């Protein structure tokens, strides 16, 4: 290419302000929307699992109605967690090298192992032990494709005598206990991928894994509330208010901790004012104003904090309908806010030059691998999978607190045939 044309391209386009290293002058950031979606999805998995484990490990009986829904939500998002990464790779066909020849000093190399561990040893096992009895019973009564599926999922184990079920219950609990640190590991490592990059002052930060874990818990819990309310609406049944109130209480406290730590992170950055703080300040006030201050801090954190917080105090004075409206709004805002947080971290970290002398602009494309259409499709895909899973494995009548008897052998869940 003619040198003068390139000069004009490189130096005079409004896409770059100040001085940007020549190799940073790319049309879009190296890690774009796909990498925004990736921590968002894994975070939802981790958070939804934490919600489920509140029932199993901490025996919060009021949350029983959403136990299976939370696990299935975690599973459907988990199944899609690797997709954005795969689509982003320059050589997706070499992806298995990450597991076959891992480079142990790389946080990304650990992904394969953490993912496999979480999916195979935690989520699928816990679901199987929980569903085993139902699979056996449904397999007896269901015919056709459903019957074949249920039969296959029994894995040939048809013993549903009380001692066998007691073992199931015990195993489920053990897996849940192991699952909590695993969920933290899954998302903590995602934060570590960014936090370990010392070349980038926006990313390289010890608090990054903790912030990722906390925002993951918040987003996953919000997703469970969202999914539960949506499911109730779709099935034209009234949501269990005790369950909803309690879920949103947990969500509120998780959000308080998350907001505190994220606030602490900013306070620390501003106070210690290390190299690059000017760049970050300019980003927050300029290119990231809408997504960071407005989207993440105001709409995604402050408004839900106020809404959920006031309902903690005034619950008895607010009608059920209005409470449900407030919960739905809060969770939707939190879900958008956490997506904005992922955007701010991933894209924000690539909007300034590592020379700390210039800024890049990101124009979001519509189509193509780096376009938002594909990313939206990737966020939509787990919901489609979840719909199928709910059709198959979540009976029309969601278990409520009244029909769940605490103990090792819960009564059979409503039959899918009635769904």
């Amino acid at each position, binding site marked *: *290419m003619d*040198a*003068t044309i*390139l*000069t004009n*391209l*490189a*130096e005079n386009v409004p896409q770059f302000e100040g*001085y940007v*290293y*020549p*190799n*940073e*002058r*790319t049309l879009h950031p*190296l*890690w774009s929307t796909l990498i925004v979606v990736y921590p968002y999805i894994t975070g939802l998995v981790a958070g939804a699992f934490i919600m489920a484990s509140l029932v199993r490990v901490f025996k919060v009986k009021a949350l029983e109605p959403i136990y299976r829904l939370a696990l299935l939500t975690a599973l459907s998002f988990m199944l899609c967690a690797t997709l954005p*990464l795969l689509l*982003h*790779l*320059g*050589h*997706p066909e*070499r*992806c298995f*090298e*990450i*597991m*076959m*020849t*891992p*480079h142990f*000093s*790389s*946080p*990304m*190399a650990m*992904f394969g192992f953490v993912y496999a561990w979480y999916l195979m040893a935690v989520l699928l096992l816990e679901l199987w032990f929980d569903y085993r009895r139902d699979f056996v019973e449904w397999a007896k009564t269901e015919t056709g494709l459903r019957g074949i599926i249920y039969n296959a999922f029994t894995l040939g184990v048809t013993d549903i005598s009380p001692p066998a079920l007691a073992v199931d219950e015990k195993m489920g609990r053990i897996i849940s206990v192991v699952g909590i640190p695993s969920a933290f590991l899954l998302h903590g490592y995602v934060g570590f*991928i960014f936090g*370990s*990059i*010392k*070349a*980038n002052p926006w*990313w390289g930060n010890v608090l990054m894994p903790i912030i990722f874990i906390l925002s993951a818990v918040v987003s996953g819990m919000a997703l469970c509330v969202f999914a539960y309310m949506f499911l109730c609406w779709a099935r034209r049944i009234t949501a269990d208010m005790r369950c909803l109130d309690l879920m949103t209480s947990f969500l509120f406290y998780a959000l308080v901790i998350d907001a505190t730590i994220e606030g602490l992170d900013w306070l620390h950055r501003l106070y210690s004012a290390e*190299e690059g703080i000017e760049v970050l300040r300019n980003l927050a006030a300029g290119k990231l104003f809408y997504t960071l201050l407005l989207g993440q801090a105001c709409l995604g954190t402050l408004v839900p904090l106020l809404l959920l917080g006031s309902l903690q105090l005034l619950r008895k004075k607010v009608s059920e309908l209005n409470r449900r409206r407030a919960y739905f709004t809060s969770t939707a805002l939190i879900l958008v806010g956490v997506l904005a947080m992922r955007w701010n971290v991933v894209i924000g*970290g690539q909007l300034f*030059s*590592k*020379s*700390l*002398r210039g800024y890049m602009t990101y124009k979001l494309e519509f189509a193509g691998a780096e376009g938002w259409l594909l990313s939206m499709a990737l966020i939509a895909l787990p919901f489609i999978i979840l719909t199928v899973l709910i059709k198959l494995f979540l009976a029309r009548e969601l278990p409520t607190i009244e029909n769940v008897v605490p103990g090792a052998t819960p009564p059979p869940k409503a039959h899918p045939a009635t769904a």
Partner: protein
Amino acid sequence: MSENMTRRSVLKNLAGIVGGILAMPAARTCKAAVQNVLASSGAPKGYDPFQHKWLMALDVDRCIGCGLCVEACKAENSVPDGDFRTWIERYVITKADPASGKSRGETFVDSPNGGIGGFKTSLIPKEDILKSFFVPKMCNLCEKSPCSQVCPVGATFESPDGVVLVDKNYCIGCGFCIQACPYGCRFLNPTTHTADKCTLCYHRITRGLKPACVEICPSQARIFGDLKNPVPNDPLQAFIANNKVERLKQNLGTNPRVGYAGLDEEVR
């Protein structure tokens, strides 16, 4: 069934199979590491990387900003348009307003097309300029290279002879190394879809030649040598002895090996 098939023997066999499966990733890691060094580096047969330690140093005061090194690098290594294994930066520092009480004014940096074809006259009036200089940039050959550290498959590695290389037949193109390099020296090659960077012209230096940029530099701003095999009147040894040598972004602990003489505090 064989009568020798006892429970103990079955367990032994099972343990063997499990052990074999567990050992596979480790074995493949070792194999890949060896393959990396031998196959992808472009070195000739018989070249022993343990017998050399290559290093480049840059003399800021000697660089005239002609951009020939960038052009030579592009031609030698087929570097795609818009990507750079090496580039030249021009620093223009203005005079400070005496009322401000500062020692210097603003710093303007540019690198149009990496410096290929030289630089046009700066738009800043000559009388306002305190000082101006060119800085050649390239891979800093870090001892603790963050790019190698984060590569998930070990496709990028520190060769024993001091060069950080990428195996393009092995790189998965995740871009983690590009994010981890504090110096902006890496890029994703649009042709191979893998990470790309300066190799010190490994295919040349392992055959006794100099890197293309060193070969072409008209002002000897780039000094190259082998620390393990100094020659008589070695230019690299002389450069180190006669200059106060600094390194870029030392605060990050990457231990960059490439040394600069005449570096200004504004350079990063």
